[in-house]
C-alpha cells in the first residue's frame, strides 16, 4: 500500500524536477497527497519526515530559509533512499521449469581474448573478419559466451563475415545449434532467415528435411533459394524441384536449375535442357555449365547443331542473326571444358563450313573449335587446325603448338619455315612478314614464360623471403632435343631477340655476334632486355669475364632490374674489381634493389680485404 503511495510521490517529485522547483509552491497534487503522509507519519517517523519535506516544498519561499531547489533536493534524496529499501525482488504469476537448451560449450576464455572477438562480431569497421576467422581457427567459438553473438552476426552488414558465420562457424556447433536458430527462424523473412535455414539444414541434417521442404514451397524468395540448394541432396525431393523449376520468380528458377544440375538424373537434366534450350536460356546457363553429365553434353551438342542449321535460314535478317548468335554463344559457353566424340564431329563440320559462318563474323565459334582441336591433340585434329590456319593466321598458335607435339623437330621447321607440304603459301611479301611475325609470337609463347615465386633473400633487412616474378625459358637441353638447330639462324635473321636468347648455344658465332652487337646498342623496345640478355649469355656459355663485363654494362646503360633471379645470382659472383663501378650505379636504385647492391658491395669489400691479407 504505502509503496504505491511512495511511487506516486516519486512520480510527482520527478515531475517537479522536470518543471522546475520554482513552480512547486502550492502544487495542488502534492498538497492533495500531504494529508495521507501526515496520517501515516503518526505511526512511522519516515513518513512524518516525508510529510515535512512535502510541506516545505509547497510552502511559499518567503517562509523558509532554504531555496525551493534545496527543499526539493532534500525531499528527493530522502525519497529515493526510502524507495531503495522497498524494492521488490519477487515476481507475480506462476513459475515454471526453465526451458534450457544446454550444450557442451565452456566458459574458459579470458576477458581480453573474448572481448576482441565480441567487439568484432557486434560492431562495424575494418579488420573484423580476420579477428573472427582467427578466433574460429583457434577454436574460441567453443566458448558459450560467443554463441549468441555468432548467431546475431548472421545479420552482419559485411556479407563476407556473415558468410563465414553461416558456412563455417555455426555449422561447426553441430545439431546442438539447431534449436537456438529455430527459435527465431521465420520462413517468410529475408536474407537473415535464408542464412538461418542454411545452418539449420546443414547442422541438423536429414532430420530437418520437413522444415526445408516447407521453406522451399512456402518461404520468402530468399529462404526458398536457400532451401532448394539443400533439397538437391535428396532424391525424394526431385518432383518438388521439377515443379519449382517453373516458378515465376527468376532467382527461384535459377536456384532450382542448379539443384537439378546437381541431381543429374534423367528427368532432372531433361528439364534443365528444356529450360536452357527454351526461353529461359540466360537463367539456366550457369547451371548448364555446372552440369557434368555425358547425356547432358549430348543434348547440348544436338541443340547446337540444330541452332547452327538455322544459320542459313536467318542469313538475311540481321536481328534474327544476332539473336541466333547469342544462343549459339551460350551453347559454346555451356560446352566449354567438355570433351566428347559428338563435339569433335560437330566442330569438324564447323571448320569444313568455315566460309559459311565466317561471313557472319562468328570468330568465337572458330576460336572455340581451334582450342578444342588443340586440346584433342590428334593427327586428324592437327589437319583440321591446318585448315583454319590456312584461312587466318589467328589460328597459327594452336596449329603450331599441336604440330610441335606431333611432328619431328625437322618436320616442324620444314613445314613452318620452308613450307614443305603446305598447299597455300603466303603470296605477297607483306603476307609473308605477317605470317613470320605470328610464327615468332607463337614460338615465344611456348618458350618464354613467367613465374611468380618466393625466393630467400638473406641480404634484405626486413624479412628473409621475397615474392619475385621472373622470366623462365625452357631448359637448353629441351631446346636441343625438341627443336631443330636451324631455328636459331632463322631467329637471328628475324632479329627475334627473346628467342635468340632462349635458343643461344655455345660456339654459335652468329648468335654471339648478334648479342654482343645488341650490348653496344640495346633494343629500346624490348621489355626486360637486360634480364633476357643475361640468360642468353649464360646459354651461350661465354667467358666469365665477358659475362660480368656485360652485366656491369647492362646495369650502367639500361634499366636493369637487379631483383631478378638470374641477375641476382650473377651479381653475387661479381668480383671485387667491379666495386667502384657498382657503387656508381647506386643512385639508379632504391629500396630493396639498393639493399641488394649495398650487400654485394659489402661482400666485395670483405673479399678484397681477405685477398689483401692473404
Amino acid at each position, binding site marked *: 500500500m504505502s509503496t504505491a503511495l511512495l511511487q506516486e510521490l516519486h512520480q510527482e517529485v520527478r515531475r517537479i*524536477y522536470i518543471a*522546475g522547483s520554482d513552480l512547486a509552491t502550492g502544487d495542488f497534487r502534492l498538497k492533495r497527497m500531504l494529508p495521507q503522509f501526515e496520517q501515516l507519519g503518526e505511526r512511522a517517523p519516515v513518513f512524518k519526515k516525508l510529510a515535512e519535506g512535502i510541506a516545505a516544498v509547497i510552502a511559499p519561499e518567503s517562509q523558509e530559509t532554504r531555496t525551493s*531547489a534545496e527543499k526539493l533536493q532534500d525531499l528527493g534524496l530522502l525519497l529515493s533512499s526510502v524507495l531503495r529499501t522497498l524494492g*521488490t525482488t519477487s515476481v507475480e504469476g506462476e513459475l515454471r521449469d526453465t526451458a534450457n537448451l544446454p550444450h557442451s560449450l565452456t566458459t574458459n576464455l579470458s*576477458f581480453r581474448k573474448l572481448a576482441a572477438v565480441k567487439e568484432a562480431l557486434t560492431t562495424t569497421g575494418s579488420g573484423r573478419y580476420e579477428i573472427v576467422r582467427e578466433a574460429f581457427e583457434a577454436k574460441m567459438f567453443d566458448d558459450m559466451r560467443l554463441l549468441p553473438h555468432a548467431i546475431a552476426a548472421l545479420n552482419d552488414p559485411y556479407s563476407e563475415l556473415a558468410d563465414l558465420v553461416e558456412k563455417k562457424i555455426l555449422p561447426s556447433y553441430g545439431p546442438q545449434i539447431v534449436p537456438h536458430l529455430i527459435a527465431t527462424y521465420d520462413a517468410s523473412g529475408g536474407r537473415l532467415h535464408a542464412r538461418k535455414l542454411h545452418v539449420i539444414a546443414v547442422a541438423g541434417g536429414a532430420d530437418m528435411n520437413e522444415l526445408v521442404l516447407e521453406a522451399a514451397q512456402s518461404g520468402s524468395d530468399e529462404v526458398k533459394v536457400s532451401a532448394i540448394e539443400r533439397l538437391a541432396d535428396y532424391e525424394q525431393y526431385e518432383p518438388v524441384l521439377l515443379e519449382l523449376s517453373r516458378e515465376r520468380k527468376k532467382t527461384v528458377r535459377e536456384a532450382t536449375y542448379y539443384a537439378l544440375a546437381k541431381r543429374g538424373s534423367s528427368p532432372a537434366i531433361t528439364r534443365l535442357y528444356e529450360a536452357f534450350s527454351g526461353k529461359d536460356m540466360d537463367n539456366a546457363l550457369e547451371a548448364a555449365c555446372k552440369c557434368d553429365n555425358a547425356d547432358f553434353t549430348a543434348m547440348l551438342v544436338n541443340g547446337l547443331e540444330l541452332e547452327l542449321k538455322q544459320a542459313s535460314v536467318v542469313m538475311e535478317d540481321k536481328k534474327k542473326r544476332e539473336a541466333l548468335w547469342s544462343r549459339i554463344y551460350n551453347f559454346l559457353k555451356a560446352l566449354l571444358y567438355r570433351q566428347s566424340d559428338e563435339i569433335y564431329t560437330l566442330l569438324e563440320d564447323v571448320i569444313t563450313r568455315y566460309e559459311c559462318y565466317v561471313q557472319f563474323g562468328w570468330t568465337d565459334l572458330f576460336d572455340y573449335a581451334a582450342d578444342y582441336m588443340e586440346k584433342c591433340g590428334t593427327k586428324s585434329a592437327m589437319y583440321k587446325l591446318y585448315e583454319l590456319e590456312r584461312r587466318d593466321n589467328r589460328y597459327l598458335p594452336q596449329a603450331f603448338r599441336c604440330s610441335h607435339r606431333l611432328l619431328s623437330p625437322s618436320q616442324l621447321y620444314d613445314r613452318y619455315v620452308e613450307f614443305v607440304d603446305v598447299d597455300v603459301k603466303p603470296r605477297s611479301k607483306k603476307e609473308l612478314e605477317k605470317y613470320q611475325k605470328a610464327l615468332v609470337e607463337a614460338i615465344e609463347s611456348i618458350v618464354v614464360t613467367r613465374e611468380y615465386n618466393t625466393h630467400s633473400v638473406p641480404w634484405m633487412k626486413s624479412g628473409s623471403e621475397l615474392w619475385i616474378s621472373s622470366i623462365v625459358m625452357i631448359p637448353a637441353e629441351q631446346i636441343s632435343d625438341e627443336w631443330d638447330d636451324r631455328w636459331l639462324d632463322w631467329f637471328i635473321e628475324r632479329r627475334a631477340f627473346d628467342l635468340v636468347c632462349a635458343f643461344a648455344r655455345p660456339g654459335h658465332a652468329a648468335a654471339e655476334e648478334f648479342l654482343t652487337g645488341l650490348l653496344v646498342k640495346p633494343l629500346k623496345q624490348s621489355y626486360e632486355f637486360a634480364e633476357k640478355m643475361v640468360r642468353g649469355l649464360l646459354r651461350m656459355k661465354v667467358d666469365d669475364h665477358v659475362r660480368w663485363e656485360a652485366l656491369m654494362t647492362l646495369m650502367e646503360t639500361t634499366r636493369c632490374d637487379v631483383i631478378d633471379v638470374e641477375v641476382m645470382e650473377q651479381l653475387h659472383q661479381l668480383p671485387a674489381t667491379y666495386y667502384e663501378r657498382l657503387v656508381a650505379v647506386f643512385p639508379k636504385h632504391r629500396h630493396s634493389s639498393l639493399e641488394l647492391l649495398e650487400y654485394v658491395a659489402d661482400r666485395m669489400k670483405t673479399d678484397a680485404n681477405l685477398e689483401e691479407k692473404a
Partner: protein
Amino acid sequence: MIELTEGYVDSLALNASAIKNAQGLVKKRSFVQLNKSQDGTLLFGECAGSGKSNYACSADFIEPEKPVMRCSCPSRQFPCKHALGLLYAYVGGETFEQANVPEDIAAKREKAEKREQKKAEQVAAGEDTKPKVKKVNKSALKKKIQAQLEGLDLLEMFALSLIRGGLGTVDSKTLKTIKEHVKQLGNCYLTGAQTELRRLAVLIGDEDHREAAYTSIMEQLTLIHALIKKGRAHLTAKLNDPELKLDSESTIEEWLGHAWQLSELKEFGLMSEQVELIQLAFISYDDKGRQEYVDEGYWLEKESGKIHRTVQYRPYKASKYIKEEDSFFDVAVVSELYLYPGDMNRRVRWEKMIHRPLVSQDLEPVHANAHRSYADAVKLVKNQLKNPLGDHNPVMLLHVAEVRQTEQGQFVIMDEARQHVLLNDVFSLGHKTVPLLSHVSEANLRDMTMLVMFEHDQDSGRLAAQPLTIIKGADITRLLY
C-alpha cells in the same frame, strides 16, 4: 628452473595486441638467438627488429614474484613484445642454449641486490623501511580544504539553479555550462565531485533518451546533493580537527577525490597478511564520467569469505601504456593485501602476488560463504542501497536451490525457503548475461552458488540481480568474463 604457462605470459602482457604481436615474432622466427643462464633464472635473446641491429631482450626471474623484463627496443610498453615473445618461445618449447649472464644484466642484478641489502640492513638497524607518510604541511592542507569547501559551494549553487529552472529547460547551452563547471571544479581538488558532475553531463547529453533518462538525472542530482552535504560536514569537521586526519571509516574521502596511498592504508591498519584470493568475475567498461576505462575484478578472500573488488583505472589518454587487466583463473597468494574503506565489496590492492593453480578444494569456501537465505541477503543489500553514497551495485554470493522461469520467460532464482529473486541485466554494466542462462545445463542450475550483482530500478521499484558466475561443485561457469 622456472616454470611458465602460456596463461601466465598472457597475464603479463599489457593488452591483447601485445600478445598477438609477441606470438607473431615467435611464428615469424624473428628470434635470432635464445639463451638461458646456468641456473635457469634468466632468459635472454636477440630479436630482429626493423632497425639495423637486433634488440637484446631478457626476462629475469631471480625474484619469481616480480619478474623483470628488459629490452633495448624503444617501445614505451612494458613489457614490450620482444620480451613477451621471448617468454612465448620458452613456453612453446624452443631450445634455449645455456650461456653466461650478459655483463649489463649482471651489473643490474648486482645493483638490485645491493639495494635489497641496504634495506635489510636498515631493518636490522631498526629503521622504518617503509616510505614514510609524508609530513603534512598543515597550513597548505587547510588551504586545500578551504578550496574544496568553496568548490562544493560552487557545485551546489550550480545544481540548485539547474533544479530551479527545471530539467525540462536544459539545452545545449546548459550542457556547455556544466562542462565549464567541471573545469572549474578541477581547481578545487574535488576530482570525485568533478566526475559526478561529468556523469550528469553525460546523462543530459543523451538527447535521444531524454525522457527515459529523467529518472537517472534526478538520481544523479540527489547524489550530488548528498555528496555536497556529507562532504561539507566532513570537511568542516576536518578543518576543526587539529590533526586534520583522513577519515578511514567511510568512503567520503574517495568521493571527494582522495587517492589512497598504500602507506596510508597500512598506517590505518587496513592491511591483511598472507591472503588467498580467487577471482570469481571480471568486468571491464568505459566510464565516461571518469573518462577512464575501468577493469574490475571480484575476488573471494578464502579465509574471511568476503567478496573484494580490484579496480584498475586506465585514463583514455594513457590507456595504451597501462596494463589492461584480465580474467584470472588461478589462486592469487598475496602477502600484503591493502583494503580501502568501503562497503560490502571493498576495493583491494596488492603489490606482490604469486599464483598457484586452482584445485577443487579451493572452491569450498565459495559454497560455504554463499548466503542461503535471500531474505537476509536482500536486507543487507537494501541496507547498503539506503546510503546515497554507498555502492549501489553490491555483489554477493547466493546459494541457489533452483532456477525457474516466469510465464514471460524471466529467470528467477530460489533459495531453500522458496524465497525468490528476479534475475535481470544491470543496466549500468552494459553486458547481458541473463540470456546465457538458457545455455547452461540443467544440472548446473540446481543446488549451486551464484555470484550476482544487485541493482535497484527506481522506475519499476524493483530490486533485481544479474548473474555473473555460476559455481557448481568445482565447475565454474563465468557468464561475464
